[in-house]
């Protein structure tokens, strides 16, 4: 095999999708033309956060000219879900959040569908609602899912029927009770984090077509076409080969387009109007109320250290507000549970990580998956503890941070990382040691640091598959099932294939749109797992193709494979110095001497990857040999200032340093770091707001403010460390989510440094900061 240094790995090659996206040629779901046959649809949504459905009358609506059908959940008893199958496609007996779909209207135009939706008469019996996860976990809380005990559930999730608790993950490690007496300092606190939205530029859109033959095709804006197919097929009893999901490029996902959101509604509506494609396109407002959100979290944290600042124990309770359905959220609580300490070495830990039903929108995956939620409290309380013991926050973290081979909270041995290097680089980049002057007299300046860890949160054995297919001219098509969401997954796939095959990067094309009929399997585009898992599959597929080529040539030349390699599209022999161009031979093979027959044939490489080494965790202690495949770690340091006249924050510099194992494409890492810093800021400053009736008060960009181009930090410093892992391509692991996990607490720590106020609850609105500043001034008077 090839022994020379990789030439494409570590190169910032141009993105495969750059030209298409910049010129507007890239096709998204809504761009696909379906002609006059296309029908349009709207969902009738619940106006109550919790109610029983007494009756649904669709007669008036059906009589409106142009209406083709109206679908309700009456005949649909099956439920959807990935880890806990608890979600109906259309609510039929009970609604559990404001905006829950109750009926679907199909009509010849969208405007007719809008009018018809208003004519659907639904009688509700309003029930008491519960929004706070701590309240909802109490025995006397209104029960949202009386049938919880009968739902199908993954074998590593533990719901508590008769309560609103859908998952209770426990860690019992060491002896927490007795460790407190050895502590010199103990910090305690409660931290709260509200639900937020993913706000992708492209709202959820899907088109479904059901044909007489029983074939169903679904075009969807999806991060996970295979998971989508699996969930819908199981729910509706459709054979997998009869349900085809086509997923063009995604205009922003951030986890919000993982699993199934509204796509099953489109399928059910299409089944009712056989032969006609039905389009369901959510408005921006529906994106806020009717798709998944990041779950809320209330965390109770107690942590103690000895006089040297060494951490001795932690006691944690996490209450995740999972919203109305926890089909995905249960695994977030689980992931938060087995990583509950954050990236610290703590010998004694007691933790309960609960997912709790509430009458809020469905909580689900969002960038970082449980980690931004828990780090919000963890990274602040570590600063508090450091202050109590009189240690600098950077020094405290260097002392206590997790290291390679440490036995971590779940009992597993830490995979290779160098968090210390990340901390040192990040703090250096914002001149941690230097107290700097604010840029104006009405401002105060402060610096803060926060560190993080995150493992891909997924079932133990999610698989990736890839196919590498040669064309006559030795250009290559790489087929994958992982999605391009803007993160650059296709570019990395092309880079890996080109490197392995010894062909120029420019000659590799990644086939899209993804299509479950043709694309090889991929579990989901989530968990920052593609560079690692899909990367491994592509590498294996390319290696397979390479072997096929070398076998043919070796045979042809009567040489050993080990003496051959491929460079720049030429097979070269180290031994005989012969050369064989790849073009033509990768399809037609090579002739025997005097054309007495042929060797080889069309080269198609196949490869897959599936982690086989993740083990079960004990349900009572959360301990096991290997909870996860690996961890990615990183540090963020923030230099900011606060306007004392308005309470507004301005991030002057944010330094992000992550241990990526191996940088396949440094520019793509930098763009993740930049995007993550801005996303992290937005997550610190905004929230979904609800009134007492559970109605979302800010379901549009008018009042849900995310950072604009004018708000981004003045400087974003990005860097990385490379500590390779054993099971990633060239040691690489993902970094797409990690870059925003600890931004909010890093900002909060810097804010504390600037003004001496600790904010335990997000968001950090200017309003809240200003009034707290005034209160502090008044108190000190």
């Amino acid at each position, binding site marked *: 095999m090839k022994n020379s240094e990789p030439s494409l790995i570590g190169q910032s090659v141009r993105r495969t999708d750059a030209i298409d996206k910049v010129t507007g040629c890239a096709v998204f779901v809504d761009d696909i033309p379906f002609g006059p046959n296309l029908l349009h649809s709207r969902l009738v949504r619940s106006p109550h956060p919790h109610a029983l459905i007494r009756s649904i009358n669709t007669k008036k609506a059906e009589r409106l000219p142009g209406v083709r059908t109206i679908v309700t959940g009456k005949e649909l008893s099956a439920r959807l879900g990935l880890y806990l199958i608890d979600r109906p496609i259309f609510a039929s007996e009970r609604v559990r959040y404001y905006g829950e779909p109750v009926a679907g209207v199909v009509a010849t135009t969208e405007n007719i569908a809008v009018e018809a939706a208003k004519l659907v008469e639904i009688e509700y019996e309003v029930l008491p609602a519960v929004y706070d996860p701590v309240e909802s976990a109490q025995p006397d809380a209104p029960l949202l899912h009386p049938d919880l005990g009968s739902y199908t559930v993954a074998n590593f999730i533990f719901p508590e029927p008769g309560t609103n608790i859908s998952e209770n993950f426990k860690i019992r490690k060491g002896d927490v009770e007795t460790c407190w007496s050895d502590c010199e300092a103990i910090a305690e606190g409660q931290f709260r984090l509200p639900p937020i939205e993913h706000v992708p530029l492209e709202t959820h859109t899907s088109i479904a077509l059901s044909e007489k033959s029983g074939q169903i095709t679904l075009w969807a804006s999806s991060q996970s076409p295979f998971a989508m197919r699996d969930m819908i097929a199981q729910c509706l009893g459709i054979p997998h080969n009869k349900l085809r999901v086509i997923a063009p490029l995604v205009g922003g996902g951030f986890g919000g387009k993982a699993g199934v959101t509204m796509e099953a509604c489109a399928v059910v509506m299409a089944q009712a109007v056989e032969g006609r494609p039905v389009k369901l396109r959510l408005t921006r407002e529906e994106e806020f109320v009717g798709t998944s959100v990041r779950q809320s979290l209330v965390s109770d944290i107690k942590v103690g250290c000895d006089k040297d600042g060494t951490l001795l124990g932690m006691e944690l309770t996490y209450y995740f507000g999972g919203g109305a359905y926890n089909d995905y959220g249960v695994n977030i609580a689980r992931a938060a549970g087995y990583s509950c300490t954050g990236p610290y070495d703590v010998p004694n830990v007691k933790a309960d990580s609960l997912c709790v039903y509430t009458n809020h929108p469905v909580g689900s995956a969002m960038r970082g998956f449980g980690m931004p939620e828990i780090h919000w409290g963890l990274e602040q309380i570590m600063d508090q503890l450091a202050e109590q013991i009189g240690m600098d926050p950077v020094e405290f973290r260097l002392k206590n941070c997790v290291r390679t081979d440490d036995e971590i909270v779940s009992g597993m041995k830490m995979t290779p990382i160098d968090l210390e290097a990340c901390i040192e680089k990040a703090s250096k980049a914002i001149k941690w040691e230097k107290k700097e002057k604010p840029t104006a007299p009405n401002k105060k300046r402060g610096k803060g640091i926060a560190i993080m860890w995150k493992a891909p949160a997924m079932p133990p054995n999610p698989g990736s598959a890839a196919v590498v297919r040669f064309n006559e001219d030795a250009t290559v098509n790489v087929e994958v099932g992982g999605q391009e969401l803007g993160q650059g997954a296709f570019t990395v796939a092309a880079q890996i294939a080109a490197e392995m095959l010894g062909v120029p990067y420019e000659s590799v094309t990644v086939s899209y749109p993804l299509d479950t009929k043709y694309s090889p399997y991929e579990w989901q585009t989530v968990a920052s797992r593609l560079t690692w898992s899909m990367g491994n599959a592509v590498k294996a597929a390319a290696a397979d193709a390479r072997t096929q080529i070398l076998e043919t040539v070796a045979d042809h030349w009567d040489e050993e494979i080990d003496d051959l390699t491929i460079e720049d599209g030429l097979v070269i022999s180290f031994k005989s110095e012969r050369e064989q161009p790849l073009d033509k031979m990768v399809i037609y093979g090579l002739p025997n001497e005097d054309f007495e027959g042929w060797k080889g044939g069309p080269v198609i490489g196949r490869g897959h990857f599936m982690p086989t080494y993740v083990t079960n965790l004990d349900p009572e202690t959360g301990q096991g040999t290997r909870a996860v495949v690996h961890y990615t770690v990183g540090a963020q340091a923030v230099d900011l200032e606060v306007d004392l006249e308005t309470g507004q924050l301005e991030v002057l510099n944010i330094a992000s340093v992550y241990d990526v194992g191996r940088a396949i494409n440094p520019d793509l890492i930098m763009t993740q770091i930049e995007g993550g810093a801005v996303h992290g800021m937005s997550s610190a400053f905004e929230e979904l707001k609800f009134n007492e009736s559970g109605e979302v*008060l800010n379901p549009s960009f008018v009042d849900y403010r995310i950072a604009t181009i004018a*708000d981004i930090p003045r400087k974003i410093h990005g860097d990385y460390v490379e500590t390779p892992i054993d099971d990633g391509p060239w040691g690489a692991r993902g970094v797409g989510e990690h870059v925003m996990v600890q931004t909010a607490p890093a900002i909060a720590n810097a804010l504390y440094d600037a003004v001496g106020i600790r904010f335990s609850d997000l968001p950090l609105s200017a309003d809240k900061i200003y009034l707290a500043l005034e209160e502090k001034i008044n108190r000190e008077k």
Partner: protein
Amino acid sequence: MLARPGLPDFEYMKAESPQDVFRLLEERGGEVKLLMGGTDLFVQMRDGNESAGILLDLKYLPGMKDISYTKKKGIKIGAAVTLNQLSAHPDVTNHFQILSQSADTVGNYQLRNRATLGGNLCNASPSADMAPAALVLEGEVSLSGPDGERVMALDQFWVGPGKTALKEYEFMTAVCFPNPPSGAVGRYLKLGRSKMGDLAIVGVAVLGYPDPEVPAGIRFRIGINSTAPTVYRVPQVEELLAKAPLSDDILRQASGEAMKVSAPIEDVRATVLYQKKMVNNLTFKGLKEVWSQLINS
């Protein structure tokens, strides 16, 4: 409930003359909505708060997009002049800088290509960004109705949130601003939740000019938005500032008075207390900046 996906169906008509407008309003009254830039109307229609069978576009009426300036009379700005035009027009930037400064704070560049001065003022939103500056410049609006033209001082024009003194069938054709007093300096300070594209949580326009007749030597006019049913001036505060020699303490006292006058309501954007404090702080900041600029010039 939630906004609909697109606009409801409507008929679009372009008015060629004021008579067109009156005739159509008389014939089809209730169905007609007058259209300027549409940046608010379309949103309201989508949200289901407004409906219209016919949108009658006034932008192409004679003079609606004109800007004319004379040294003697000041400036006349057609109601359909867009905010980007206001932002860049030399007569505006040279003589009414606070107008172009205010225009630059509205929404984003794309929106300002459509949004008009007349639309912003007729919309009568309490948070209208053009209104504080228009008030302190003591503008007058020209209104056209079936009975002819009339002129009204802007401080009479707004009567409540979304409500103006426009009579049935009447529409705005232009806004006139007299030349500001000699040596005037203006400033519009807008506080939003993000630096771009937000509505004003509080906006304060301050216009200051030398006036040897008053003890302060300077007169101020202050216009404030987002913190009362209409955009308003604070004459009692302006008087207070004129009465005594200026100092930081006087400015602070005046800002405190402005805060007392303000009457914000609690909403999804900000608490009452924060909005009141921001009236105080932005008024002080605006006064201080204008004062410093006057002293230095």
